[in-house]
């Protein structure tokens, strides 16, 4: 089993329901999905696994018509189709249930199930009939949910079940689940699995995307692995095991670009003892000058919440923080900045940048107090500081007056980092600094980390991309469900062990 299995093994008379031939997607210079051949059979549950950024969401968006393919062909029941719009996908019978429920919270369960397909009589809504039918549907599926209840009053897990029921009602032939169990309790997940099996029995093809390998083995008939936009391979579930899948998910091809600088560790900068807050519990770590501390884990594992708390954005609920040996209580961002902490947050769009303002403005935002002479800002110093960062970081812009929104992901990340280089700090916290960044810029960011270390800074680096933190961090902590599972000095354990810890297999 070294070759990817392509095409319909175990399919009787019928060919695949959906077949992708050399399907690819590029965003500018970034190849989000490299030419992939993949087929989905009737009556199968096909799992797709891969790390964050491996191309799973790109694949879903292509299949549901949200984005257009750059190359390749898609065959639906043996006929070439365009799949250019969401409506076309729905017309074929392709539906998706997303991790975040996209329904109307202020309407009843029944109204949501029939949304866009309401039962009418003389132009009037037949509310009672819809509630009755919806209730029957839910009961048939084994969901103990009230059809008349307002959707917003249900748990996220129950809303997920409603979304599934809605898709099932619509004559769906091909149903994609994107991380459906992320917010579900065990019991809700069991209900969902039962429904998925029932859907398969009734002839629906299921694509199941998940980080949780145990679910894949419980549910799927076949599994495909994506890595860095490559379809690495497809396996029958009976022919594979967790170890093989994990090794397929991990990428080594980028190793050569990691620039690991070994710097003697200096003064202890930050130490947390049993720190707790919203989204994380009982976290104890320490960072010294010259050290990179890596925080690995899946998105939502509590890593970002932890560093936001260190930065004073969210209050801690328990435990202690020590800064250079002294106990401190970091109540707001300004206090953290004053201590010498800098944060390049996870979301460039929502947290990192003032997108509709110029690059120079963004770079100088933390230091406008320093640029002020008397009452007004010195225009010369403002220009000098912005231009210096643009030059040093090789931000590709003709002018500091260009809006940050017009920059590529990599250049935007440089702006987020550049504003803190402009300001200066002892401890730099980088939350997912290389997400959505091309390989060249990744290498530049790694070199930048090395330079900061040499200058005596300490670094906390959060990443969902294992090879990156694995190669760069001196100490690697793994987060799972808000807690540390263990802490490993540089290269003391294998990739496989770290990933296994994070996903809990």
């Amino acid at each position, binding site marked *: 089993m070294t070759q990817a299995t392509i095409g319909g093994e175990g399919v009787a008379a019928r060919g695949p329901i959906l077949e992708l031939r050399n399907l690819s997607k590029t965003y500018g210079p970034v190849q989000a999905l490299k030419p992939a051949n993949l087929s989905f059979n009737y009556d199968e549950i096909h799992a797709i696994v891969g790390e964050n950024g491996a191309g799973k969401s790109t694949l879903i968006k292509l299949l549901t018509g949200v984005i257009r393919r750059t190359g390749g062909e898609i065959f639906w029941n043996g006929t070439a189709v365009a799949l250019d719009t969401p409506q076309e996908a729905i017309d074929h019978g392709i539906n998706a249930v997303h991790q975040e429920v996209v329904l109307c919270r202020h309407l009843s369960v029944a109204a949501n199930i029939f949304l866009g397909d309401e039962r009418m009589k003389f132009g009037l809504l037949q509310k009672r009939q819809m509630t009755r039918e919806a209730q029957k549907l839910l009961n048939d599926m084994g969901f103990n949910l009230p059809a008349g209840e307002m959707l917003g009053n249900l748990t996220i897990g129950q809303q997920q079940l409603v979304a599934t029921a809605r898709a099932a009602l619509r004559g769906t032939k091909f149903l994609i689940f994107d991380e459906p169990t992320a917010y579900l309790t065990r019991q809700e997940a069991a209900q969902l699995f039962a429904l998925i099996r029932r859907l398969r029995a009734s002839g629906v093809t299921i694509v199941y995307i998940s980080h949780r390998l145990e679910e894949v083995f419980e549910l799927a008939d076949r599994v495909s692995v994506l890595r860095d936009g490559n379809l690495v391979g497809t396996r029958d579930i009976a022919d594979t095991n967790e170890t093989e899948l994990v090794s397929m998910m991990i990428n080594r091809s980028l190793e050569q670009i990691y620039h690991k600088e070994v710097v003697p560790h200096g003064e202890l900068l930050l130490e947390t003892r049993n720190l707790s807050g919203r989204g994380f519990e009982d976290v104890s770590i320490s960072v010294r000058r010259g050290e990179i501390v890596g925080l690995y884990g899946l998105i939502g594992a509590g890593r970002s919440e932890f560093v936001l708390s260190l930065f004073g954005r969210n209050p801690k609920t328990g435990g202690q923080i020590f800064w250079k040996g002294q106990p401190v209580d970091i109540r707001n961002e300004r206090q953290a900045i004053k201590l010498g902490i800098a*944060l390049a947050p996870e979301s460039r769009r929502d947290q990192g940048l003032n997108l509709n303002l110029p690059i120079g403005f963004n770079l*100088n935002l933390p230091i406008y107090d320093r640029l002020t002479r008397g009452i007004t800002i010195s225009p010369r110093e403002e220009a000098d500081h912005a231009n210096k960062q643009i030059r040093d970081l090789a931000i590709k812009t003709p002018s500091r007056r260009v809006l940050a929104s017009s920059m590529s992901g990599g250049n935007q990340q440089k702006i987020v980092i550049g504003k803190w280089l402009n300001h200066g700090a002892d401890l730099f916290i980088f939350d997912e600094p290389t997400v959505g960044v091309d390989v060249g810029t990744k290498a530049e960011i790694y070199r930048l980390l090395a330079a900061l270390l040499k200058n005596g800074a300490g670094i906390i680096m959060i990443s969902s991309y294992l090879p990156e933190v694995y190669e760069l961090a001196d100490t690697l902590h793994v987060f799972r469900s808000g807690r540390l599972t263990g802490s490993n000095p540089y290269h003391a354990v294998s990739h496989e062990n770290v990933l296994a810890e994070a996903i809990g297999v």
Partner: protein
Amino acid sequence: MTTTEVASKEAVRARRNYNFLFALTLLGLLIVLWVALSIATPNFMTDRNIPNLLRQGSLIAILALGQTFVIITAGIDLSVGAVAGFCTVVIALLLQSGVPVWLAIVITLLVGLAIGIFHAFGITKMGLPPFIITLATLTSLRGIGLLMTNGATISITDKSFTSFATGDFLSIPNLFWMVIVVALPSYVFLSHTRWGRYIFAVGSNPEAARLSGVRVQAILYLAYSLSAVFAAFVGVLLAVRLGIGNATQADGYELQAIASSVIGGTSLFGAVGSVHGPLIGAFILATINNGANLLNVNSFWQRIITGGLIILIVFFDQLRRRGR
């Protein structure tokens, strides 16, 4: 790489040119209106009408300027007309009870400040949308003002106070000088101080601003206080001009102020705006009203023309933004 570089270089130039052109277009529109009106009616370019027009526009211009600070933070201040009306009552009562003019003015401005602080408190601490909290003050301030005077109008008898409105300096009406007195520091503040920068940062992305060390709440207090103090100042000028205190004055001024700001290129989504824009916008509106009066156009038409102008200008602005 080189193509995108060239493209964005052109984009920068285009944007700078655009901003310049937009300001120029507005000014051009104002001049065209003036020229057209002087041709259309002999009553326009007269020693009586022009100062009158400047006085009319001045009050809205100052309101629009204060409003602009708030709109740049992606907020809105619906209360400015009511604050101005309320403040005519405050200053009239103060003068009636024998408070010296300078002190009465200071106290009135402090009342404005208190109202602005209350708005920011409602937004930052009570979590109310700016629209709601300022709408609430809009209605309740009129009520409070009427209660204070029992619905009566209070006349201001101090001649030295009221003569200021009709006076001029260097043959420019005093009220127009007040616009300059307010606009110059506003320009320095908005374009050349860090506080001005922070106002833009909060309007663009409050979370990013906060994580960069900006005191977002303090900036909101600043913006709403400025708007309310400017409105209180307009209340003082209104009392000067008409010589009375009555809480029902300045009715609908808030919409004219918002319209002036928007016509002047301020984006209701925040982070886009200037000092000169709302000023020119206010005088364009004043000219349209003035011209319509002189030409005996039904006054209802003035409102329709204003509405059409808002749609037209904001539509062109949207076209430009989408095209970028």
